[in-house]
């Protein structure tokens, strides 16, 4: 972990150094592609407001807004997918009725829900949450049903032989056994959700990290554009690292059951 971290920082140092040198040597035009020393000092010195006026949000506000949207959408998506997945697994007719719909909607990219979200919820958080929820709920439902099907039948027989009734069996055996596999899918879906919210923020919502980049472009502020990209990348990386940590520390038994 530490060695990998050192390599990661090292290769980023090389990229930044080359970028910096390229700017010094005049290979990159500073107004379009400013070097890190330029936009990072802008970040440190000025603080950042996105847009103009006293009410313009800061970069921290924008980051929190984006995280809140992704978080709320993912949470609703996970709860709904678990509910649909469990229902479909318990009641075979429900499975036959619901799964064809779910499997057709699962491949739809989250970004494709943006126009519908905007016309249903207008410009605001509702649209973002709607996009994330619809973007993840169907794939997660497919994953949940598959994970439940994959639970070792002998594990269930063991639990039933020890007296587990069906409610207890679901809460204490099936869901814990299926959780790691579903969570892997959550992790994969996180990026799709993250990107969908950013795209929605760029094209319609006019707030959050995605909007920062568009506003930067409109104001010919290349520093803001690059800071936006950097923050998006780092936040996505941090969130994914957190999900990996949860996978390893909390739902670690994926390969054991």
């Amino acid at each position, binding site marked *: 972990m530490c060695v990998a971290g050192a390599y990661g920082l090292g290769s980023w140092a090389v990229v930044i150094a080359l970028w910096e040198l390229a700017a010094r040597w005049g290979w990159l035009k500073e107004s379009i592609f400013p070097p890190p020393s330029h936009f990072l000092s802008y970040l440190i010195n000025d603080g950042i407001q996105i847009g103009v006026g006293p009410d313009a949000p800061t970069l921290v506000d924008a980051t929190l807004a984006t995280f809140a949207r992704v978080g709320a959408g993912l949470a609703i998506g996970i709860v709904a997918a678990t509910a649909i997945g469990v229902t479909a697994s318990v009641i075979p007719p429900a499975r036959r009725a619901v799964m064809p719909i779910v499997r057709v909607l699962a491949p739809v990219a989250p970004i494709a829900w943006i126009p519908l979200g905007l016309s249903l919820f207008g410009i605001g958080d509702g649209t973002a949450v709607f996009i994330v929820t619809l973007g993840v709920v169907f794939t997660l439902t497919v994953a949940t049903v598959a994970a439940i099907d994959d639970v070792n039948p002998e594990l269930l*027989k*063991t639990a039933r*032989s*020890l*007296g587990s009734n069906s409610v207890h069996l679901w809460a204490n055996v099936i869901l*814990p056994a299926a959780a790691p596999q579903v969570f892997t899918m959550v992790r994969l879906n996180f990026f799709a959700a993250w990107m969908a919210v950013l795209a929605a923020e760029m094209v319609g919502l006019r707030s959050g990290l995605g909007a920062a980049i568009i506003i930067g472009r409109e104001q010919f502020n290349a520093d803001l554009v690059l800071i936006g990209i950097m923050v998006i990348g780092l936040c996505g990386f941090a969130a994914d690292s957190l999900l990996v940590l949860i996978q390893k520390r909390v739902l670690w*038994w994926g390969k054991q*059951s």
Partner: protein
Amino acid sequence: MRTLRWEGVSKYWPAPGGEGVPAVLDVDLAVNAGEFVALIGPSGCGKTTLLEIAAGLESPTSGCVTLDGKAIDGPGPDRTLVFQEHHLFPWLRVRSNVAFGLRFAGLSRSDRKKRVDGLLSAVGLAGVADKLPPQLSGGMRQRVALARALAVGPEVLLLDEPFAALDFQTRILMQRYLLAVWQRFGTTMVFVTHQVDEALLLADRVALVSAGPGRLLEEIAIDLPRPRDPADPRFLKLRAQLTSHLEREVMAAADEGMGELLLPAEESEHGIEAHERVF
């Protein structure tokens, strides 16, 4: 006497079109309270099905299994199962795995803890009570599984090749543990195995099941004192007898699946010709 009794048990697995594939046919077997009975037979002969019906996890197509005269119609804490794989819940610590079935037993928290601690020290695992299953060796996991099955205080323990996945040394150790558990708790044991030696070392009585669909062929009482000596001439005689019967069933089970090379001598001439022609 609380006898576990299979009465004319047949089980057909559903198959498209026909009446189903028979797994076991018309099995009658009685296991007395406190008795140790081994079921032995070739792979696929329906031994597991017989156990699962007794556990209440499968229902027979015809016939029934009774415990103390009452028909079994579902799983119950009076009969618990131990499988070849330990099937511990990996997310639960050893202690919670053993306590799994006790949640339904209506015991107080302190009584539950007392029982779990007692069982863990009985199988030599008191020191690992707070470990997680992946941190244990194969033999330890199987001992946890044994303790978990015993925790609910079953009258009958149904064991489905419980030591088959263990290495030789661990298996010998586990056989000792099982005998010690049996002698201490007086639990009735129904032990499925395909190893003749294991059956002869452990059981009061060995029931031989035919190649599938499984029928009960014969029951052999093992009237030897414990601990049993595999070099005892009586042990060797029983071993030879049981091995030849089992071999006959294994060959019957394999009859169509093994090719001409394994057919009896008078038929194999043709097989060798065929073999030579191929090359």
